[in-house]
Each structure stands twice: as C-alpha cells, then as structure tokens.
C-alpha cells in the first residue's frame, strides 16, 4: 500500500487501527540467492537495491536483534559529503545525491533536512585545514563555503566566538544536514519487503560454511540456510563474522557515545561540529539537542562508553554555547563502531569466494547509507567492485593505497 494523503484520510475514518504492517516476519527459507547479514540501514538498503536495480528475487536480510537496533538507530544522524580525498568525495556525494530523493523513492519520510553544517576552526592550523579541504571539495564539485569569524558569528547567534576556544572561521556545507535514523531502516525494510525480500529479525548468524574456498551456507539461531552469495554488513561485529569465515580484518571495535537534552524550543537551525575541541551538536525536530564526540580508546563490545567521555563532550559544548549550560541531559547511550586504520570503509570482496563485506564505517557511516548500499548491491551482484567502491577494497591494506581521511582531516563524522 502506498502512503499518501488519500490513504491517511481513509485510515483516519477507522481511527488508524487498520493500517497494514509495514513489513512481515516470514520464516527463514532453506535457500537464498543472496543473504545479507545485518539489518542496519546499509544492509537493508543493499537488499533493496539488489531487488530493485538488479532484479535479484530470492533475498533475505538476517538481523540478530531488531532492524535498526545497531548503530543505525544509535547515531547522531549527521549527513555531509565534504571529505578531503577524491575517492571519499565520490562515495559520500553519491550518498547525498541519493538522500535528496530518498523519501519519495521509498515512499517513506526519512525527514532528510539539509539545514547546513558548520565545521568550526579554532586556530590558524584549523583554518588551513578547512581551506585545504574546502578547495578540494570545490574541485570535486561539492558545495562548500569558507567563512570568516564575522560571518560565523552572524549566522550562529548563540555561539561564543571569543571564549576559551576562539572561533576563527568555519567550513560550511549547505547541502549537509540530518535525517531520521529509524525511518531510514524502516523505509528501506518496507520498500525491500514490497519487492519480495525476507526480513528476518531475531536471527543471529553463528557460523559461515565455506567449501573449496566458496561460501555455501550459514548457520543461524533459526537453523541452517544454503546460499549462493552473502553480503556481510554487521558494523561493530565485522571481525566476529569475518572470523567465522576464517579471516581477519584491519578493524578495531570501539565504543562511541551520544546524548540528548530535554526538548526545548527551536534554537539551533544547523549542525555544528568542532574537530579540535571535539564536540558536535544539532537540534532534533522534537527539540532535543543531540550531542556527540569522539570514541573511546579501547576495544569493546559492551555497547556502552566510558563515563569520563561525557564530560569531554559537555565541557566544550557549554564553552561554545554558554546558553546551553543549564539544560538537563536526558539520555545517553553507546554503540560499537568498526574503525579502520585510515577511517575509510571496506567495501568489496573477501578471501572467500562469493562472500562480500561492507564494513569499517566506524564513527561516520550513517551519512553514506544510501550510497554505500547502492554501490555494495552492485558489487555483490556483479561480483566485482564498481568505480566508486573500487578504492575501498580490503586489498588497499596490502598495496598501501589507503584513503587516509584520518590523518588528513581528523574528522570524526
């Protein structure tokens, strides 16, 4: 059923009691052409594009918990594409292009809001970094503006530009913004299911069967299943899944936290990020301030971050926005993010034939969801990388051709 004003009116007549389910809970079949492991935005999106653009019929998405319950439903939803290197610019801008049409593509409001994002610069060095990145974005056709202090002060009235962390300027991407994280998972799930994809929740993959170097099946908490191809999209658990198939990854899983304040009236109409003092903030449509910072230094699967990290987020926030100092924080939570040495994702083949992986998105993969899913679907379908996914192969860790967004920009999200 299409979501439309007509159906809204029609269903209001029965007090919204008779809407059909957005997706069903089928039983696991004994055999699939493609199984996607991990029901986050990237996995569900991959299944959707495999069905929609590549006509694959017999697909399942296996999720050990509930869909979107991983990092997709835990992130602070910042979307941008102003990365330094050409390879990243191509990948993240592909995503932003898809974000712009996603609500109508999926017939589901993902609340994509291009409210603009400011990367603050607090020193001469920061100004040099944003200039370098800004000009690189410009050459890659990504919208970008380098602002001076006065322009920033005028556009963000409550920002304290003369405090302990003086603001020298900012890099602005107007096409950047936020989206509703749950809606992205739900929208892809509903659209994928309407194309015949089985979405199977509470189904944990516990083993990967490999025969003569080719993936042939999966052992799950709901039984065994035969497969032709598998796409692993398990984010924080990537190493765990890779180990089941007998190989290692250049990944560490670490906790990353976020928190939200009590809801207040509209006060911040853009996204603010500061890499030097490490905090970022936006205001949700419910009115809460959504605040995040850096990850912890130690590996963990505990899904909770260290206590002192909260202070590391709040101290710069109240320094930059003294007006927020008396707000109460309502909730904090953590996710486990899969971090690569160069802070770029791994998309492509693995040492096992017909077993593909899309992981390593670490602290910043929500923004890439549609682009990542789209190029990964093509990679799985063709069995070969695409122009965009090619540079993000696992092999780059042997050839040395890293896409080093970490050292270049020190940007977390």
């Amino acid at each position, binding site marked *: 059923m299409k979501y439309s004003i007509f159906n809204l009116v029609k269903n209001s007549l029965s007090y919204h009691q008779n809407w059909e389910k957005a997706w069903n809970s089928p039983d696991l079949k004994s055999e699939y052409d493609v199984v996607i492991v991990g029901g986050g935005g990237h996995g569900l999106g991959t299944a959707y594009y495999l069905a929609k653009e590549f006509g694959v019929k017999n697909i399942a998405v296996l999720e050990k918990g509930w869909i979107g319950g991983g990092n997709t439903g835990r992130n602070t939803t910042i979307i941008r594409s102003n990365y330094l290197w050409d390879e990243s610019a191509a990948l993240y801008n592909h995503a932003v292009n898809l974000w712009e049409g996603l609500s109508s593509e999926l017939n589901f409001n993902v609340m994509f809001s291009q409210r603009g994002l400011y990367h603050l610069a607090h020193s001469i060095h920061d100004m040099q970094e944003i200039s370098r990145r800004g000009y690189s974005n410009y050459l890659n056709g990504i919208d970008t503006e380098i602002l001076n202090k006065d322009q920033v002060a005028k556009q963000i009235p409550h920002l304290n530009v003369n405090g302990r962390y003086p603001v020298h300027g900012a890099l602005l991407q107007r096409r950047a913004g936020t989206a509703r994280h749950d809606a992205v998972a739900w929208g892809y799930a509903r659209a994928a299911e309407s194309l015949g994809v089985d979405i199977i929740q509470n189904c944990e993959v516990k083993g990967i069967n490999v025969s003569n170097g080719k993936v042939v099946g999966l052992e799950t908490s709901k039984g065994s299943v035969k497969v032709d191809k598998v796409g692993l999209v398990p984010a924080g658990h990537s190493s765990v899944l890779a180990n089941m198939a007998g190989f290692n990854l250049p990944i560490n899983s670490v906790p990353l936290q976020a928190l939200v304040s009590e809801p207040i009236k509209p006060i911040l109409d853009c996204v603010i990020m500061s890499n030097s003092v490490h905090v970022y903030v936006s205001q949700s449509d419910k009115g809460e301030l959504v605040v995040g910072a850096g990850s912890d230094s130690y590996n963990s699967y*505990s899904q909770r971050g260290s206590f002192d990290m909260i202070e590391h987020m709040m101290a710069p926030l109240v320094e930059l926005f003294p007006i927020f100092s008396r707000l109460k924080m309502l909730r904090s939570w953590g996710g486990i993010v899969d971090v690569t040495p160069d802070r770029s994702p791994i998309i492509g083949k693995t040492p096992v034939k017909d077993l593909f992986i899309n992981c390593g998105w670490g602290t910043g993969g929500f923004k890439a969801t549609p682009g990542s899913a789209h190029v990964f679907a093509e990679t799985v379908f063709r069995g070969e990388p695409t122009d965009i996914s090619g540079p993000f192969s696992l092999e780059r860790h042997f050839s040395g051709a890293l896409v080093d967004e970490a050292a270049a920009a020190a940007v977390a999200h």
Partner: protein
Amino acid sequence: MFIIDCPYCGERDQTEFTCHGEAHIARPSNPNEVSDEEWGRYLFFRNNPKGIHFERWTHDHGCRRWFNVMRDTVSDKILKTYKMGESRPEVNE
C-alpha cells in the same frame, strides 16, 4: 573498568590511562623479505576479539609508562595487568 591497576603505581582512576591497541604483535625480523601482504597484515590487521583481549596501555597522567592488560571486551572487566616484556597470561576458560 573505572580503576586500573598500573604495575608501577598501583590502582588509579581510568581517566589517567589511554589504550593503544593489541599487544604482543611482533615486528617481522626480515622486513625486506616479507611480501606486501605479510607487511600489511603486520601493520593493520588485528584480532579484535569479542572476549579476552591483550592490549597495551599507557599511564599518561601518572608514571607515563607502558604496560599490558588482559581484559574481557564484552564486560570490559580487567582480568590482569602486567609489565611489558612479560609473557601473555594463560586464559582459563
């Protein structure tokens, strides 16, 4: 985690320490002879286990020395801290 037992200083608050990843990784003794793949594995690939992890920490705001920690990455519980150069403790399942 909260309290970490530095082998040199004793028990201190976690905020005084930083973790620096997996321990006991030996640099190949013949760098000129190993293949690109072997070198890449040495530089970048990690075990990243869900369970017992051996890792290097520094006591930044204390003695500033490096030491090793055996920790469960599911509960974050520290099972043992020991000096650099000491061998990896046994894991009793």
